[in-house]
């Protein structure tokens, strides 16, 4: 792309940008990006995929090995890095508040570098603190260590906004927080953004955060952009296997009322016990033979289309009876792969049944999940690290 091709409204453009560190690490590999004015762009991907490096190239903390980056139509390689950085807000991954300065002084670092008057700095600091619900009278004279983690992160964000930059780079700004505070800050920040419409480049490896905040999501893997698009495009059919896996994997950690049974099964398909699928229309004799062949006590009864009807119990099935009705248990609990894990657990409790039948999206039965499997699923979802060990050990 050449300078003339760029239209107005483009804030940052990456043109075939690569970064190879002196030790040979190819951190960013031929990245092309167009970031439009006012757009909220989220860079997402697994650890070490080059998100931070990509971000740092925008304010020249890292210079590309090849390719060109334009900031408002100008090649940033031609710009004085110090002057450029004062125009670009930056929230670093480690928060990085200066411990020897008060909150007010921390927020006012860039205004001070830009030689704003003391009065103008003061007014701006108070305005920003109020914006995030921190009383200036209480907080401006405090020191960073006297704030909670959430407040520190807020101040880190305010500091980046202080000199009213057109673009703000944010590297996992809510990274180290508990999920509740994190959610709160996301909401707050979304509200701020809806007022100011800044151009934001936001790094995270939390897909929920990306989907919640981003106008555009850029998925990176091993230094490359593997997909970019609006949140809806990404979660839909178009996604590559990697993206699907990444979304699935990330979304698994957390809330069993959000994680679908199918998502959990993707990684643990063997958890599903297979039972013979029995076409009820074929009659009792055939059902009996099928169950005997499989050595199963139960079969999954389906209609001629293969859709779930009811459970067939071998014990009550008389081989000579023409009628299946005595052996059919229509009250057997069934859930769809699209249902959340929580639903499976609730059905088990409500029906007081040792297992639950899992159906695919077309209501064809896939198999059954036992009580202990459902328990494993809940534990693994809520405590992804610890759960597996404990359950295995049993």
């Amino acid at each position, binding site marked *: 792309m050449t300078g003339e091709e760029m239209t107005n409204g483009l804030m940052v453009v990456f043109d075939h940008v690569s970064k190879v560190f002196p030790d040979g690490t190819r951190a960013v590999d031929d990245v092309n990006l167009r970031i439009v004015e006012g757009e909220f762009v989220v860079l997402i991907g697994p650890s070490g995929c080059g998100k931070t490096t990509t971000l740092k190239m925008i304010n020249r903390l890292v210079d590309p090995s090849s390719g060109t980056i334009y900031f408002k139509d100008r090649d940033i390689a031609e710009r004085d890095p110090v002057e450029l950085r004062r125009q670009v807000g930056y929230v670093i991954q*480690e928060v*990085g508040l200066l*411990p020897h300065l008060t909150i007010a002084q921390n927020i006012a670092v860039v205004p001070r570098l830009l030689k704003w008057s003391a009065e103008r700095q003061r007014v701006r600091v108070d305005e920003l603190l109020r914006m995030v619900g921190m009383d200036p009278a209480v907080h401006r004279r405090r020191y960073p260590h006297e704030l909670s983690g959430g407040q520190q992160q807020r101040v880190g964000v305010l500091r980046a906004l202080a000199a009213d930059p057109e673009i703000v780079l944010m590297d996992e700004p809510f990274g180290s927080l508990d999920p509740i505070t994190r959610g709160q800050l996301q909401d707050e920040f979304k509200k701020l953004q809806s007022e100011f419409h800044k151009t934001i480049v936001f790094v995270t490896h939390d897909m929920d955060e990306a989907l919640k905040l981003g106008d555009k999501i850029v998925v990176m893997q091993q230094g490359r952009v593997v997909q970019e698009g609006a949140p809806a495009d990404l979660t839909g059919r178009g996604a590559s296997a990697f993206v699907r896996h990444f979304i699935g994997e990330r979304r698994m950690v957390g809330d069993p009322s959000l994680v679908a049974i199918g998502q959990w099964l993707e990684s643990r398909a063997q958890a599903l016990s297979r039972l013979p699928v029995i076409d009820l229309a074929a009659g009792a004799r055939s059902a009996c033979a099928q169950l005997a062949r499989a050595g199963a006590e139960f079969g999954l009864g389906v209609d001629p289309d293969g859709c779930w009807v009811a459970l067939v119990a071998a014990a009550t099935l008389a081989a000579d009876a023409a009628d299946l009705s005595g052996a059919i248990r229509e009250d057997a609990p069934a859930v769809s792969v699209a249902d959340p894990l929580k639903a499976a657990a609730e059905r088990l409790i409500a029906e007081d049944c040792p297992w639950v039948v899992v159906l695919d999206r077309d209501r064809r039965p896939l198999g059954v999940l036992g009580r202990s499997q459902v328990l494993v699923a809940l534990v693994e979802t809520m405590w992804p690290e610890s759960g597996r060990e404990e359950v295995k050990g049993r």
Partner: protein
Amino acid sequence: MTVWVKFIRYIIEHHDKVLLYTEQHLYISMIALALGFAFCLPVGIWLTRHERYAPIVIGAANVAETIPSLALLGFLIFIFGIGDANAIAALFLYALLPMLQNTYTGIKNVDRSLIEAGRGMGMTDWQILTMVELPLARPVIVAGVRVASVWTIGTATLAAAIGGGGLGRLIFAGLATIRDDIMLAGAVPAALLALLADWTFAAVERWITPRGLRVQQHGVGKAKARRKMGGEVKA
């Protein structure tokens, strides 16, 4: 008469002499310390920017430290001749190690992410040094000065051995004439001076520690500082 009574009498009778030597002693030590600091601060900072020289330079200061004091003083006679200049030069060399080491490590130990934050906000190298690194390294640097000051004052007693001034004169005179009271008249003020320097620089260290760090180090101060701030708000 015990030796202490004789010592006190000596001090009273010869207070002008004791005072003069104390003054000389302080002068020699502080000049050496000041020169040492003036050298160590920029060199220490320079070393943090050119790290491959750090082992060489700090190693050299370490070597100077290991030379026996009297041997060093004797050796320096060939360069500076006899007198205070020689003593100051030797003390200067002794004072280097703690100050150089502390300046260097104090700055090196500043959290990388804070420097990155400063750079990312558009600080120049000079601003990163003066707004981030030095304020945070200051307590460590002053601790180095404190150690150096105690060493210097102690070692300055040897200046008398090569024709310099200071309280060492009394000590050597006392040793030569086997007069404990004269020796003590030199040794006691020298020890007091060292203690005073230690105490003074400890106070300086506390005083220049940025408040945001000070409170962090002492858990008790935290609650106090909070209360104080709360009070200010209400007032």
